[in-house]
């Protein structure tokens, strides 16, 4: 039991992202309202983004931004950069891309939901399906 507890505590970022993913998945599958489904999808994507960022974190590391002074005296060569002091910037950069993708997906999804609403005058999936069946 203590092993398991240790496992949970040590890898808490994994458990968090898994939980978020499951919440998102649950929303997509079981919610009726289209906007709620879309939000669930967004939560799903956010979970993955959090995961990536979390794997770049290190104990005692600071944000990966180099502080430069101004002027030639403070050129790049005057500081020796210890990579171990900084968090891994690569996942952050990758996730910037992923966030943009997520936003774009959200936009497209909401546009589609709007189109659905204009046609069926409701955002509840069961009502939409009922309308389709009636046709």
């Amino acid at each position, binding site marked *: 039991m203590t092993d398991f507890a240790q496992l949970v505590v040590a890898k808490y970022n994994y458990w968090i992202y898994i939980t978020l993913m499951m919440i998102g*998945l649950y929303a*997509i599958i079981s919610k009726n309202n*289209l906007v709620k*489904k879309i939000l669930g*999808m967004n939560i*799903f*994507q956010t979970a*993955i983004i959090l*995961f*990536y960022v979390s*794997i770049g974190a290190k104990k005692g590391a600071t944000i990966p931004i180099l502080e430069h002074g101004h002027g030639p005296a403070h050129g790049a060569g005057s500081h020796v950069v210890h990579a171990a002091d900084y968090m891994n910037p*690569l*996942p952050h950069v*990758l996730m910037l*891309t*992923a966030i943009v*993708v997520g936003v*774009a*997906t959200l936009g*497209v*999804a909401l546009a*589609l*939901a709007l*189109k*659905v609403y204009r*046609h*069926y005058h409701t955002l509840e999936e069961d009502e*939409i399906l009922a309308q*389709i069946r009636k046709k």
Partner: protein
Amino acid sequence: MSTQYPALVVVVPLLSAFLISAAGWANKRLCFPIAVVALAISTYSCFGLLVRVLNEGVVVYRWAGWDPPWGIAYYVDHLNALVLTVVAVVSLINLVATKKSIDEEFPDKLGPFYSLYVLMVTGCLGIVATGDAFNLYVLLEISALTGYGLLAMGSKGRAPLSTLNYLYMGTIGACFYLLGIGYLYIVTGSLNMVDIAGILPSLYQSKAVMAAFIICMVGVWLKMALFPLHAWLPNAYTYAPSAASSLIAPLATKVMIYVMIRLILTVFTPEFAFTTLSVSNAVVWLAVIAIVVGAVLALQERSLKKMLTYVIVAEVGYMVGGAWLGNSAGMTGAILHIVNDALMTLCVFLAVGNIVYKAKGHCFEDLQGLFRKMPFTMGGFVIGALSIIGVPPTCGFFSKWYLISGAIKAGQYHFMAALLFSSLVCVVLFFRIIEIGYYEPFSEEHGHGHGHHQEPSMEEAPLSMVVPLLIVAAGLVVVGLYTGDIVEHIIRFAIPKGLA
């Protein structure tokens, strides 16, 4: 110039998308020519690249000169060069063939439609050409989002709804893929495919690597509509406008199959995929079920377009099963089937596009007497149907040959049985259509048809829609006859030596 081919393939359509958007405001009639020129340049570059690969071997293109693993590299070997060419040719032919139908369905949205079209092709081409795992994710999402836009442009209300369902599934799939490469990044520190492949072998026993593989696979399977993750496909493709479905149906799933094969062959070597991880039997069974379910569900449909989407589900089963058989015949069959299936799906969907353009519907009732009214379209459709059934000398027969050969060699007779079963079901499916088109409605009254009934006049689709269809149909036979060359000179090199 030829050193820039890999870049041209993707950059030209990308930039032209912006041009088309601008042109859409200025002068709508410019959109089509710009798109054609862009895709033509892309196609030319793909052919050039194929020739380069055949002569030199693998072509690596470093964007902005940065070396991997820091920079993004395009890695073009025999496998991608072949698939790139197919994607480019399919999208170009489709663009030309569907011009009239686009003009008719959304005359006021030409700018947006063409720019989305070209962007989608960019995404697909990029997915195939890239050698960087994260870059693949980005391009995956580009092609997916633009695909959603294209599919949702249908005039009926069902199109946005079905596309929304596709959106959920597609996004989940892409997210799984992203998660998978996240795991890979954790263990290897690299995002470049070849680099990862170099670092991984010592880590094969690690659970993280196994998890990465499975998660990536599930993501890719979601996006290619492998049973049981296929539910989004039929609705999404059926209610879409013809131009969109005849672009996306041949390409989207095949490109994902390419990604799966790339993951199996290059990133995680076949040794890992087939021996270390012992799921191949289960996956082949899954493919068998996919084939059978696709075939059986297709039988129940009364709409031609929806029936064809279920046929796509079955075809995906062919390719996944073939790849996971674990021998070179099966893998050859899967790769060959990527090429063949893209062409034959394009053929039948173009024919359906023509039918929808003239007959305004794609249910069975709209198809009566079509052989008289649209003989050329139906001729092209019949050749596409024969290829899907697997009748020589069309190309579909030869990829089935390799798939069944692989099944026999691997002892997976259930896969062979599924392939034969689906061929027979396809005979029934397509001959039902042929019957409806062949026996006119008035034949019931005339027992002997002595020629005194009104022969309906020919109302064929316009030339710009028929000629590309016939070119693709002829292409099916030509590719079939050249199978030996394709396998001998291209596919043979795509398969690593380790595969039996």
